[in-house]
């Protein structure tokens, strides 16, 4: 569709309402929605705010709405500290950086970086790696299902869908045994393979829907012009499927990024991602809430960015491609 047609289409589609709603109805609807949105965002705001509280403010009772912000939570997230006696600290050379002095104020000394950066990197590698693989394999398989007659196609497609019905804990039982034999426990490769396998079912379903929509005539024309099937795929089909691929990628990424059950059961050190790491960030004696809140905030940022960028495609992904353009 050209831009002009798309615009007019969008314009017409936005006029879907029972009646073109009166300003009063709109205001009423708007108020309710805004109310819900505000209520729904409050927990998140509390968490973002907690990241800027001091330890005692975070667990103060009654809970503090007004507080003095500090970067302790973030510093605690990124460092490992040990408590020393005030005499020991007095004997140390003066603090070199702002975070050093922040930590010293609590009679603690920075002993090294915490594990949060390696965990975040793991999340990036495993998340993006499995997304890329799932989308890659999914595109190929979807293309094949769409354009060729594969024997047992219906059954295969249904089997692909049914793999999503098992609770992850159930799937983890034999995978745990299998990985134990293959020395894949706690490896990034193992996690990437697992997440790819889980994502590829969604990817095939979504992408088949997208590719089904691309008219065959373009490829046929290209083939007649002398292109091979592969070239036709690359030059004709893929460019038109890019938005579909982006939508699929976003869903695969959200799954791999946020996944917890497999990660907590099959990783412990090397390949551990953020979700099993965040709830167990411990401060002195208890959960370090400001650090946990800081980690939560940082962890959700990439997903929110991607979602906002690609929000128009969310609809299709959510309905498994049932919503057509």
């Amino acid at each position, binding site marked *: 569709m050209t831009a002009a047609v798309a615009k007019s289409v969008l314009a017409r589609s936005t*006029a*879907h*309402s029972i*009646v073109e709603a009166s300003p009063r109805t*709109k205001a009423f*609807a708007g108020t309710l*929605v805004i109310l*819900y949105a505000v209520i*729904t965002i409050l927990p998140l705001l509390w968490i973002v705010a907690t990241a800027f509280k001091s330890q005692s403010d*975070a667990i103060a*009772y009654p*809970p503090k709405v007004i507080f003095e912000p500090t970067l302790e939570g973030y510093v605690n997230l990124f460092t490992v500290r040990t408590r020393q006696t005030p005499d020991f600290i007095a004997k140390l050379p003066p603090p070199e950086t702002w975070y050093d002095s922040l930590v010293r104020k609590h009679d603690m000394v920075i002993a090294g970086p915490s594990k949060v950066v390696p965990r975040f990197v793991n999340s990036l590698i495993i998340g993006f790696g499995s997304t890329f693989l799932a989308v890659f394999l999914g595109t*190929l*398989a979807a293309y*094949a299902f*769409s354009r*060729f*007659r*594969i024997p047992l196609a*219906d059954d295969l497609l249904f089997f*692909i869908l049914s*793999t999503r*019905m098992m*609770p*992850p804990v*159930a*799937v*983890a*039982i*034999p995978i745990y045994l*299998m990985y134990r034999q293959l020395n894949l426990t706690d490896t990034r490769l193992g996690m990437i*393979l697992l997440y*790819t*396998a889980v994502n*590829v079912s969604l990817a*095939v379903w979504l992408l088949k829907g997208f590719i089904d929509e691309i008219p065959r005539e373009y490829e046929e024309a290209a*083939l*007649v012009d*002398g292109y091979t*099937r*592969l070239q036709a795929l690359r030059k004709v089909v893929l460019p038109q499927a890019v938005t579909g691929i982006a939508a699929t990628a976003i869903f695969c990424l959200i799954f791999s*990024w*946020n996944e*917890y*059950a497999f990660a907590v059961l099959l990783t412990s050190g090397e390949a551990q991602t953020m*979700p099993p790491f*965040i*709830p167990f960030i411990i401060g002195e004696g208890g*959960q370090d809430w400001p650090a*946990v809140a800081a980690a*939560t905030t940082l*962890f*959700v940022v990439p*997903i*929110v960015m991607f*979602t906002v960028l690609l929000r128009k495609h969310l*609809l299709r992904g959510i*309905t498994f*491609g049932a919503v*057509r353009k």
Partner: protein
Amino acid sequence: MTQLNWLPEVCLGEAQPAQPMDKMTTILQPDHATIPDVSEPAKSRAARRVHGLSDRTIAWLFVAPTIALLLAINIFPLIWMIRLSFTSLNLSMSYLPLRFVGLDNFSDILTDEDVWIRLQTTAEFVISSVALQVVVGFGLALLINRQFRGHSFWTTIILLPMMLSPAVVGNFWTLLLQPQIGPFNYLISLFTGVPPSSFSMTGQVSLAPWTIVMVDTWMWAPYVMLICLAGLRSIPEYIYEAAEVDRASAWRQFWSITLPMTVPFLMLAVLFRAIENFKMFDMVNLLTSGGPGSTTELVSITLKRAAFEKWRTGYSSALAIILFVTVFGAANIYVKTLNKVKQR
């Protein structure tokens, strides 16, 4: 072979109006009409073969890796698990001789009253949470469809909880719901005057099941909302215009047009959310650990404890298979019922 032939094709303002009842688009049934006919003229087939790999090779090359991966990661382990379910394997006591116990694990599970209570708890959770999400999600979609000013901004805000990791959500809600130091109880006490430390959302037997429903709805009502929005936007204008001409009231329009035409989407949302919530583990485990006692212990939590804390691999394999058969069977029945409803 299950077919979901009931979802109408959704058009965003396409040239020809959609006829929802006529043109069925399948979800689970691929569109056979678009598959190339084998009896094409030999010339073009030959032409294809001449230029690069043949179609058949490409087809297999493209599909094989996916099928292979799924076989390796899904099917082979499933078969292994079926075999394990007939044994007494306990991983933490692997020095004990492995015994084949036939159907003992299965009968153990099916005669254990606790397991049935867990299934009941899970079913209650699924039904309450999905019902609430449908009501809230559909309501929101109706309101947002009014297209008031700034609605897409607020929609994005509402979508945010969906983007979080359920495990992280379960974890930070424990802080929010703590009676002494969490804001939730204080907020409620502001509105109702009940002292904040007199009730505990995650600690009281009467409240805990509703707490997990509440947090789950907070996360997933936006999901249902999006689906319903898709449904609402698919209803073509001319139907409403026709109703206007007939001077149907707004309420009547809602009941006879909006609701019936959104129902397929709602049913889709219900299916997906129900499957997901049946599998639910991370959010509830981190929010309540299945407590107090076992009042919010969902069946996945039981499975995890049996498999990875008690290490009763044989027993938990049997339980996993029972769960899978349950979900699979339920989904199948649901979809078949849906098809029948739609054919009416």
